[in-house]
C-alpha cells in the first residue's frame, strides 16, 4: 500500500514539472465531458418537458378519445358516453394570442378528470372551488407566467378582447400551456359546447356499449402512447442530431486525452524504467497509474459536468425556441436535472479517460524493465501503431460502405457518418506519411531532405492532434455546407411559397362571409385566397389536409418537386391532391398513385397530382381544392386567408381590416413579417449546431497547442544537432513554422473532400431519414477557402508560442542537449 502510494506520488510529480501537459490533459477531459453532458442535459431536459406535457392526458395510464377527423366535436358526445358508462372527461384545446405571442389553451373538467391526471393542476384545499367558481383560475408554470409578463391573480386580456381568468402559477403545471375550466375555454376559443378530446383512466363499465355504438365513427380511441410518441417521434431526429454532435465533440476531447496521456507516458518512460529497476512491481505501477487517472478523471470530469451545465443553460433558449417553432413542443425554460445526469457525466469522464489512456497503461505493464527509452524506439513502436491504426481506419471506411449500401434508417445514417469520419481520421497518418514520403523523395538539398524526414519523424507524435483537426475541419465543412445549403433553399422556397402580400386568420366561421364580402369590395385586393385545414391521421402519422383555391397565384408560384401535366386542373376538379415530400416518402406515394383518405362520409380516394417541398414541417400535408374539402368535411371552419394586393397598399389594407373587424381576425401579418419569423426560427435551430461546431474546432486547436507544447522539449534534442551543424535558430524556427503549416494544409486538403462527403450524407441521407425531406446539395467554394484558412490559422496560432520559445532559447541550452542526452 505504502509502495503504491509513493509510486503514485512519484508519478504525479511529473505533472508539477509539466504544467502545460497537465493543462492539456485537464482541459481535454473537461471539455469532452462538458460537451457530452451539455448535449445530454439539453436532450434530457427536453424529454422531461415532453413527458410533463403529455402527462395531463397520458399520466398513470390514462387514455384519450379524439375526433376521428380532427378538430372538435359536440360535447353531447361526452354526455352520451358518460350515460353509456364510459368514464370520460372532456378537454378542449386551442390557441390564443397574447401580445402577438401564441399560447396553448387547455380547458379541463376537474370533477371528472382522472385523479392522476388532474391533481397537479387542481389540487389542494380550496383549489377546486376557486377553479370552478367564476371567474375561475388559469393555471400556468412560473416560466409561462414570466413569458406572459404578468403577475399572479392578474386577469389577462387576449388579442381579440376576451379576458382570461386570474392567473395562478404552479411549478407542477404544464410547460407552455394555459389551463382553464372547459367552460372558460369554450367561451374564450369561441367554440361553445365543443370538445377536442376525451380522456379516461377507468375502463368503461361491464355493460357499456362499444365506442362506435355510442358515437358512430365520430370518435377514435387513441392507441396507448401515441400521444407521447407523436411529439417524441417528431423531435427524436432533432435530439439524435444533437447527440451525434455531442458525441463527435466528446470524441475530439478524448483525442486530446489520448495524446496528452500518451506524451506523458513517453516523457515518464525514464522514470517508469527507474522505478521498475528499483523494485516497483508492474502491478503496483498499474494500480498507481489507474489511481492517478481516476483522480484526474473525477476532478476534470466534475469541472466538465459543471461546464456542461453552463453550456446547456446557454444553449437552452435557442433550443427551446427552435423546438417550439418547428414542432410546437414546449420546453420549460429552467434546467432541472436528475442526479443520474451528474453521475453519468462523471462516468463518461472516467470510462473515456480509461479507454483513451488504455494504450499507455498496457505499455507500462509490458514494458521490459531495461528498455531504452529512445525517441527512435518510440517511433518504431509508433510505426507499428500507424499500421494498426490504418487497418482500423480501413475497417471504418468498410463499415461506412456497408452501412451505405445495406443500412436503413437514421441510426444507419449516423453509423455511416461515424464510420466515414473515424475511418478517414485513422487513415490520416498513413496518408500524411505518404505525402511526406513523396516530398522526401523529390527533395534534393540536405536541409530539405532533413526537413521532410523530420516531418515524418514528427508525424506519430502529432498525428492524434491532426486527426482531431481533420475531424473538426470536415465537420465544419459538412455542417457549414448543409446549413448554407438549407439557408439558400429555404429562402428561395419561402419566396415562392409566400407570394401573397397579406395573411390573416378568422376567429369564427360566422365572420368569414362578412369578411369576404368586405374584401371583394376593396379595389386594391386583386385576389382573395381562402384556406382551411383539418387534422387527420394517415398511416398513423399526423397529417394536415389543407384546402386551397387553385388560383393563378399558386399555379405560377407554388414550388413543386414534381407534378403531372395538369396538376392544378386535377386539383380544381377535385380529383387530384398535392402531397408534401415528407408524406410522399412516408407513404411511398408517387405521381399518379392513389390515396384513401378517411372523410366525414367514408373513404375518399384521391390521385396524387403533385409533390411539393414542405421544409421544416414535421407533419405530413395534403393539399386539395377548398370546395372539395368543404364538401368532404362540412363542419371545417374557413380559418385563413391570403390576399394579393400591391405591396405599397399592404399597411393600409391591414389597418383597414383591423379597424373593420377587430377581434374577429387574428394573426394578421404581411409577407415580410412571416418571412422574418420563418428565418428567425431557422437561424435559432442552427444556432445550437453552429455553437457546437465552433467548440469542436476550438477543441482541435487546443489539442494542437497541447501537442506542440509537450513536443517542444523532445524537439530540442532533434533540433540541436541541426543547429550544431550551422543552421541558425531563426532558420530552424521558420522551418518549424513551415512544417506546422504544411501538416495543417495537407490535413485540411483531406478535410475538404471528407467534409463534402459528410455534407452530402447530411442533406441526402440523414435529413431524409430524420425529417422526410431532401435538400439540394450545394458546394460553396468561398466556404471551403474559409475553412482552409481557418485550419492554417488554428495551426499557426497553436504553433506560434512554442516556436517563439524556441527562437528565444539560449545557445547554451541547445548545447546542453548533447550533455543531457538520455
Amino acid at each position, binding site marked *: 500500500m505504502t509502495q503504491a502510494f509513493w509510486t503514485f506520488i512519484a508519478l504525479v510529480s511529473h505533472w508539477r514539472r509539466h504544467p502545460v501537459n497537465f493543462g492539456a490533459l485537464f482541459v481535454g477531459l473537461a471539455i469532452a465531458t462538458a460537451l457530452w453532458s451539455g448535449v445530454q442535459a439539453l436532450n434530457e431536459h427536453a424529454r422531461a418537458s415532453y413527458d410533463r406535457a403529455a402527462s395531463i392526458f397520458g399520466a398513470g395510464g390514462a387514455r384519450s378519445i379524439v375526433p376521428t377527423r380532427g378538430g372538435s366535436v359536440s360535447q353531447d358526445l*361526452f354526455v352520451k358516453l*358518460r*350515460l353509456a*358508462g364510459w368514464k370520460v372527461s372532456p378537454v378542449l384545446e386551442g390557441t390564443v394570442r397574447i401580445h402577438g405571442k401564441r399560447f396553448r389553451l387547455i380547458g379541463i*373538467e376537474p370533477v*371528472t378528470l382522472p385523479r392522476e391526471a388532474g391533481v397537479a393542476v387542481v389540487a389542494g384545499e*380550496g383549489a377546486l*372551488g376557486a377553479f*370552478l367558481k367564476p371567474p375561475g383560475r388559469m393555471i400556468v408554470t412560473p416560466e409561462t407566467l414570466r413569458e406572459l409578463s404578468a403577475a399572479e391573480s392578474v386577469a389577462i386580456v387576449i388579442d381579440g378582447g376576451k379576458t382570461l381568468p386570474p392567473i395562478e402559477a404552479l411549478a407542477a403545471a404544464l410547460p407552455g400551456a394555459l389551463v382553464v375550466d372547459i367552460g372558460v375555454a369554450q367561451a374564450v376559443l369561441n367554440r361553445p359546447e365543443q370538445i377536442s378530446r376525451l380522456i379516461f383512466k377507468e375502463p368503461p363499465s361491464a355493460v357499456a356499449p362499444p365506442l362506435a355504438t355510442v358515437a358512430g365513427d365520430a370518435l377514435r380511441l387513441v392507441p396507448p402512447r401515441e400521444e407521447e410518441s407523436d411529439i417524441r417521434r417528431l423531435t427524436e431526429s432533432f435530439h439524435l442530431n444533437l447527440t451525434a454532435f455531442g458525441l463527435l465533440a466528446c470524441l475530439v476531447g478524448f483525442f486530446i486525452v489520448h495524446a496528452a496521456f500518451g506524451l506523458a507516458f513517453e516523457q515518464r518512460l525514464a522514470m517508469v524504467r527507474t522505478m521498475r529497476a528499483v523494485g516497483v512491481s508492474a502491478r503496483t505501477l498499474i494500480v498507481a497509474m489507474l489511481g492517478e487517472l481516476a483522480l484526474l478523471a473525477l476532478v476534470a470530469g466534475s469541472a466538465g459536468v459543471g461546464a456542461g451545465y453552463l453550456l446547456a443553460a446557454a444553449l437552452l433558449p435557442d433550443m427551446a425556441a427552435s423546438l417550439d417553432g418547428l414542432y410546437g413542443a414546449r420546453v420549460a425554460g429552467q434546467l432541472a436535472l436528475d442526479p443520474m445526469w451528474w453521475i453519468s457525466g462523471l462516468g463518461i469522464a472516467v470510462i473515456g479517460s480509461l479507454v483513451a489512456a488504455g494504450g499507455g497503461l498496457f505499455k507500462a505493464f509490458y514494458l521490459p524493465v531495461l528498455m531504452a527509452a529512445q525517441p527512435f524506439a518510440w517511433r518504431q513502436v509508433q510505426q507499428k501503431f500507424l499500421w494498426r491504426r490504418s487497418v482500423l481506419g480501413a475497417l471504418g471506411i468498410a463499415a461506412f460502405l456497408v452501412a451505405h449500401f445495406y443500412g436503413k434508417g437514421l441510426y444507419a445514417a449516423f453509423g455511416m457518418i461515424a464510420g466515414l469520419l473515424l475511418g478517414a481520421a485513422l487513415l490520416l497518418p498513413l496518408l500524411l506519411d505518404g505525402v511526406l514520403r513523396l516530398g522526401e523523395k523529390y527533395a534534393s538539398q540536405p536541409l530539405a531532405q532533413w526537413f521532410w524526414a523530420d516531418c515524418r519523424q514528427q508525424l506519430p507524435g502529432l498525428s492524434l492532434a491532426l486527426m482531431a483537426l481533420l475531424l473538426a475541419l470536415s465537420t465544419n465543412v459538412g455542417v457549414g455546407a448543409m446549413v448554407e445549403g438549407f439557408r439558400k433553399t429555404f429562402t428561395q422556397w419561402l419566396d415562392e411559397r409566400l407570394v401573397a402580400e397579406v395573411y390573416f386568420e378568422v376567429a369564427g366561421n360566422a365572420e368569414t362571409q362578412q369578411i369576404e364580402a368586405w374584401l371583394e369590395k376593396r379595389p386594391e385586393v386583386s385576389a382573395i385566397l381562402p384556406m382551411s385545414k383539418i387534422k387527420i391521421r394517415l398511416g398513423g402519422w399526423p397529417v394536415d389536409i389543407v384546402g386551397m383555391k387553385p388560383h393563378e397565384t399558386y399555379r405560377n408560384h407554388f414550388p413543386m418537386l414534381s407534378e403531372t401535366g395538369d396538376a392544378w386542373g386535377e386539383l380544381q376538379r377535385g380529383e387530384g391532391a398535392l402531397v408534401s415530400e415528407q408524406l410522399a416518402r412516408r407513404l411511398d406515394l408517387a405521381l399518379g398513385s392513389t390515396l384513401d383518405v378517411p372523410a366525414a362520409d367514408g373513404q375518399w380516394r384521391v390521385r396524387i397530382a403533385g409533390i411539393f417541398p414542405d421544409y421544416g414541417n414535421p407533419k405530413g400535408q395534403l393539399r386539395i381544392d377548398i370546395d372539395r374539402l368543404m364538401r368532404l368535411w362540412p363542419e371545417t371552419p374557413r380559418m385563413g386567408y391570403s390576399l394579393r394586393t400591391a405591396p405599397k397598399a399592404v399597411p393600409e389594407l391591414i389597418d383597414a381590416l383591423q379597424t373593420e373587424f377587430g377581434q374577429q381576425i387574428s394573426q394578421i401579418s404581411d409577407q415580410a413579417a412571416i418571412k422574418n419569423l420563418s428565418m428567425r426560427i431557422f437561424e435559432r435551430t442552427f444556432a445550437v449546431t453552429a455553437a457546437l461546431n465552433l467548440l469542436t474546432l476550438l477543441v482541435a486547436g487546443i489539442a494542437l497547442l497541447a501537442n506542440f507544447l509537450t513536443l517542444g522539449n523532445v524537439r530540442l534534442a532533434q533540433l540541436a544537432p541541426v543547429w550544431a551543424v550551422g543552421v541558425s535558430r531563426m532558420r530552424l524556427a521558420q522551418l518549424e513554422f513551415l512544417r506546422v503549416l504544411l501538416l495543417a494544409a495537407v490535413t485540411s486538403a483531406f478535410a475538404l473532400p471528407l467534409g463534402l462527403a459528410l455534407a452530402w450524407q447530411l442533406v441526402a441521407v440523414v435529413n431524409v431519414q430524420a425529417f422526410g425531406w431532401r435538400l439540394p446539395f450545394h458546394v460553396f467554394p468561398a466556404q471551403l477557402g474559409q475553412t482552409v484558412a481557418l485550419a492554417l490559422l488554428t495551426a499557426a496560432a497553436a504553433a506560434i508560442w512554442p516556436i517563439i520559445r524556441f527562437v528565444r532559447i539560449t545557445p547554451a541550452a541547445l548545447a546542453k542537449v548533447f550533455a543531457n542526452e538520455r
Partner: protein
Amino acid sequence: MSVRHILFILVAVLAPLIRTASFADGFAGLGDEAKGFAVVTAGTPIIFPRDFGAHPGFRTEWWYLTANLEDSSGASYGIQWTLFRQASAPGKERKGWANQNVWMGHAAVTSGTEHLFAETFARGGVGQAGVTAEPFAAWIDDWRFATRDDAPGAGLARMTVSANGADFRYTLDLAAEGSIVLHGKDGFSLKSDDGRASYYFSQPFFKVDGVLVIRGREVKVSGLGWMDREWSSQPLTATEKGWDWFSLHFSNGEKLMVFRLRDETTRGFSAGTWIGADGTPQALDRDDSVLKPLSEMTLAGRILPGRWRLQVRSHGLDIETTMVNPDSWMATRFSYWEGPIGFRGTHQGKGYLEMTGY
C-alpha cells in the same frame, strides 16, 4: 333519512367550494354562506310530483335508496344507490358549464363476505347528471333510479334502479306497497335545538326484485327497499361531529327511522319517525328514543360502534343490532360506514345503518 349526508357532502367534494378548513370551525360559517339560498320553513307543503325533482334554490339535497335483500338460499345482501346535489352559489341555475351544481353518486353492494362500492362525480348544466320530477328520473352517468318506462305516471310507485362498479352491478325493480311518509312536522324535519331543519320524506314500503352481479356471479334477489328524499340549505351546527342513522323494517310491517347527531359540546340531538304498517307516521320526541353503542370495532384505522342497543319507549322497542358485514366501510373520497343490519329483542326484522364522522 336524516341529516346524515349533509355533513359529508359538504366536507366532501364541495368542501373546497365553501373553504371549510376543519370540522371545528368550518361549519360555523355555514349560516352566512347560505345567504341567498332558499330557507327551510315550517308549514311549507310538500307537493308531488314536484318535490320528487331537484330544488335548485336550496344548497343541498339527495335521493337515497337502500334495500335489504335475500337470495334463494336465504343469504342476506344490501344495496345502496345515492345521488347528491350541491350548489356552490345561490341564484338561478346557470346554463352549461357555468352551472353551479356538482353531483355525486355512491353505489354499493354488501354481502356477508363482501362490500363493493363505487363513486362518481358530475357537473350540472350539461346533462351528465340530473333529476326530473315527472316522469321521475334521477341519474348520474349510467346509474339510474327512475319510474319504469312501462308505468309512466306511476311516480315512485313503480321504479327501476341500476348502478355498477368495477366488480359489481345491479338492476332491480321496485314496487311501492305503501304510501310516502313525511317526517317531522309534515315533512319539516328539525336537526338541532336552534331550529336548523330540512325537508324530508321517505318511501319505506318498496318490495324489491332483481339481479346482483358480484365479481361476475349473478345472484337473483328479493327484499325490502327504503327511499329517502331530503333537501336543505343550512342544516348543521358547527359542533355537530357526525351522526348515526337507522332505518328498520319490522316483521309486522311497521317501520322505524331514527337518528342521533353527535355534538361535542351538548348532549346532541336525536329524532325519528315510527311508521305504522298502513303508513301513518308518528314523530318521536327527542327523549323517546335511546341509541347506545354496545361494542366497538376498529375499521380503516378508526374506532366505530359495532353492536347497538335501540330503545323507543313509546312503542316498547328494545332491540340489539348486528351487522351483516362489519366491513361495510365506504372508502369513497369521503368515507363513512353504511350497511345492512339485523336485530333481535322485542321486535324482529332488518334494516340499514349509517355512521359518519368517526
